[in-house]
């Protein structure tokens, strides 16, 4: 691989994880970000499941887009077709994991139904098409973006674990403080803006 190409991938990774973080800068996947960030091990499980599903669904939807929607001029059906394909895929993966790898199913299984129609997964599949990436680039981008999701989720969980031990005003306990923290973290990540144009 040429050096410029390596640089391209490195920049893509940094861009997806820090600059255009899918949760903190593009505000996709807020639901698991707030819902699954109470404990670190749950956050890691959720993040890993999203990572796994994102890469897989990006691969499938990329093929669907290029081999089915584009040749037949069905681009306007993109959203609904992607939802359908991703939902079916996640169901299939759940069954497959249950049969083939019970330990993996135990650690990821409970999260899989939760992210069937997660907008982070769907958003990545569509973003990849909008940026007109090739298959390799698309897979790498969705892996990086979901790694960014994992990072945001784990950071949030770590902060909320600390907060569980603090005396906080009763009105702010739980979700309210979580939302305030989410806002502050988002502001922090704004500092990366402009690092990579």
């Amino acid at each position, binding site marked *: 691989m040429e050096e410029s190409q390596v640089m391209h991938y490195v920049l893509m990774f940094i861009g997806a994880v820090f600059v255009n973080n899918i949760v903190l800068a593009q505000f996709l996947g807020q639901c698991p970000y707030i819902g699954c960030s109470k404990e670190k091990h749950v956050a890691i499980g959720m993040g890993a499941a999203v990572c796994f599903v994102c890469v897989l669904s990006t691969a499938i939807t990329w093929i669907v887009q290029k081999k089915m929607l584009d040749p037949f001029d069905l681009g306007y059906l993109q959203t609904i*077709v992607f939802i359908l394909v991703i939902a079916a895929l996640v169901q299939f993966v759940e069954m497959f994991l249950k*049969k083939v790898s019970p330990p993996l199913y135990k650690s990821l299984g409970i999260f899989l139904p939760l992210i069937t129609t997660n907008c982070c997964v769907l958003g990545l599949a569509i973003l990849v098409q909008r940026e007109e990436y090739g298959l390799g680039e698309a897979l790498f981008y969705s892996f990086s973006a979901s790694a960014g999701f994992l990072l945001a989720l784990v950071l949030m969980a770590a902060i909320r674990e600390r907060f569980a031990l603090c005396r906080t005003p009763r009105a702010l306990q739980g979700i309210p403080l979580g939302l305030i923290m989410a806002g502050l973290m988002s502001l922090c990540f704004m500092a990366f803006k402009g690092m990579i144009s």
Partner: protein
Amino acid sequence: MIASSVLTLLGIGSSAAVVLAVASRLLKVEENPKVELVLDALPGANCGGCGFAGCEAYAVAVVVNEDLPANLCSVGGPAVAAKVGELSGKAVVAGEPMVAFRRCSRVEGEVRARFEYVGTQTCASAAMLEGGPYMCAWACLGLGDCIRACPFDAMYIANGMVEILPSKCMSCGQCIKVCPRSITQLLPRRARVMVHCSTREKMKSVSEVCAVGCINCLKCLKSCPAEAIRYEQGRIEINHEACLAYGSACEERCVSSCPRGIMRHHSPVPKAEMPDLDSLDTDASMERGMVEPEAAASRPMQAEADTKSDKESER
């Protein structure tokens, strides 16, 4: 345009349906049908009292492992043990109904605080700081780690000490695991006597800090005709089995002989709350945990309100 969209979606949808239908056949995981039956028979409280991660883990283990006894579920009691035993093909031995007990009388003994603890309000962190905020290292810290651990709301704080509602206690033992002082214990509901102190300190250091602490005089031990009382690792332990077997003929000499007044009759369990070994079914045993005399229900609420207002005024 409409026709092509409908056809496309129909095509994708039905092919996905076919794939999933075939996959669900091919990838079906064979589960032992007994596991589900056993799981249905268990109360589903997921309290971990049996020593497994939850009801499902115990159901799997009891079906797979032939040596695992069927009576580990303390919540369901004998009725569930009978059902589980029947389903998993094991002989059923009914377990003795137990209840949790707080083995400390800190308030009564007027144990003073060594310093005012203002850190994180959990017993675990209070216990770590300089041996805890009280003069006695075995005193109930009253910050309620056990209350948060209790899956059945059977505990509450009154007067700075943890109290246990025997009517709600399912003897799952979660409170025992979290207590940094190990002063909660399980004892048989039928137990006749109990020591209300868990210190392992020597006589002098106990009598200096607590008016009713156990001073290891061993008078109870000497007075017991059943030899059910032992002195173990610096404190008095009672063998309730031997005590119950001997019966009331001793007239509880240990209680009258205790100079500190902490060997006491165990508060008798009302008849209605004693699980009936023969005629109990699962539903009834679950109700036993839910239904509760009004007096008992209002008491913890009151106590909680009191402690809350105390905290407020402290601030």
